[in-house]
């Protein structure tokens, strides 16, 4: 069980990061070149799905400390930016690098986008994080340090999700949802035959603590987030995610 005054091992790696902007009803998104504007290059692929109103662009993104696949998805009511791993590694969970590095690069990129983004009603920062652990028992022991209750090391299939909303420090009346989902994950290999999938391990099983974050501004907020407020809000979402990563499930 954790002590809220302490911080924990911050060796979390990011499997993916996401920024979601929920558009204002007044927003009009037509042709756009945001992917190119942000990266300075053309995306590797552009896919349009007009029947369901989706445009998607993606390509490799590399900064000083991280690299990944940057995906832009534009829909009628929302825009998603995601940074995902480039490949499945030979061993271990796929990641885009240390969370501390990844969030810096990703938020810097997203701050640039917010300068040219259409009117936004809500903003959300999502992250899937992993921290390697030796086995399930040690995983539960380590996970307990981030939670407000101890985990029985002999139990299994633990999955814990909680929202601890907080008032924004920047905007009066704005509530920020702080959702975190905690578990210990197993990565294993399988051989799939046409008729009968037979579990077959090519590598030893690998374990990791898993933390999924979804830090988002409340849907109940009246009005839009102004262009002046957006950078502050994004920074606040980033700070809140970093706090959970360091201090665990705190109020």
């Amino acid at each position: 069980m954790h002590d809220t005054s302490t911080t924990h091992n911050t060796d979390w790696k990011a499997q993916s990061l996401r920024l979601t902007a929920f558009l204002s009803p007044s927003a009009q998104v037509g042709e756009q070149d945001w992917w190119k504007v942000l990266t300075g290059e053309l995306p590797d692929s552009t896919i349009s799905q007009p029947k369901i109103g989706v445009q998607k662009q993606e390509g490799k993104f590399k900064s000083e400390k991280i690299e990944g696949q940057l995906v832009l998805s534009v829909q009628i009511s929302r825009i998603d930016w995601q940074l995902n791993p480039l490949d499945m590694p030979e061993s271990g969970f796929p990641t885009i690098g240390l969370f501390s590095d990844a969030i810096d690069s990703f938020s810097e990129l997203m701050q640039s986008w917010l300068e040219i983004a259409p009117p936004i009603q809500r903003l959300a920062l999502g992250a899937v994080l992993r921290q390697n652990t030796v086995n399930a028992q040690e995983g539960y022991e380590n996970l307990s340090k981030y939670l407000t209750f101890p985990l029985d090391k002999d139990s299994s299939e633990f999955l814990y999700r909680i929202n601890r909303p907080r008032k924004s420090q920047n905007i009066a009346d704005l509530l920020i949802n702080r959702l975190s989902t905690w578990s210990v994950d197993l990565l294993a290999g399988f051989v799939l035959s046409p008729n009968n999938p037979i579990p077959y391990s090519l590598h030893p099983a690998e374990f990791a603590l898993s933390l999924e974050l979804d830090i988002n501004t409340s849907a109940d907020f009246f009005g839009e987030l102004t262009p002046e407020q957006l950078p502050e809000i994004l920074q606040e979402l980033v700070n809140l995610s970093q706090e959970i990563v360091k201090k665990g499930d705190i109020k």
Partner: protein
Amino acid sequence: MNNPTYERKVDTTLSDSRERGTYPRVISTASNQSTPLYPISSSTKSRGTERSIISTEDHKHKEYIYSQIESIFWEAKRENFEDGMESKFSQNLISFIRKYNQDAIESITFLIVYENVNPEVAGEALRWIGRIEHQDSYAFRRWLLEISIILPSAHVRDGALLGIASMDDKHAIKYLKDAINKEKCNDLKEDMIQVLEQLES
């Protein structure tokens, strides 16, 4: 003999859970948060925003949903609607929303905003979208009404206005004020002002 294919998968639980039939989740680099499109109702279970519609499976699912709602709107063209009265269309629409939640509203949004449906049917749909009791889709339904109040068709704006009045949510005030400033049809403008007074009271 077929060569087996190898995939690496991740189980969200612990090792022995595989024996109890939990299905592993594939990690792929091509996205993977699944999220309701315009999420977030006021219920505690829906505060999350994750989701993407990028995968092939999702795409097929969405195309299926779109074909369903297109059929519902298409059939409705033959109906005569009476103010405030239920119809086969309204029943189908409500069932559709209850079944597919936010995916349903997303597909309806697409049809209405891009004017792919008969405006009278769209207007009727918006009336019911503001009226039904369905918490999971609430925020997205409200968003659809707020965007529809300024669309080109007067039938659509009228339906959106009635939907907003039924919802009676002050969140719509800002968008209603914008719509009043833009409205050129005097009768509709007067109705909008009345609804604005209702929301502000």
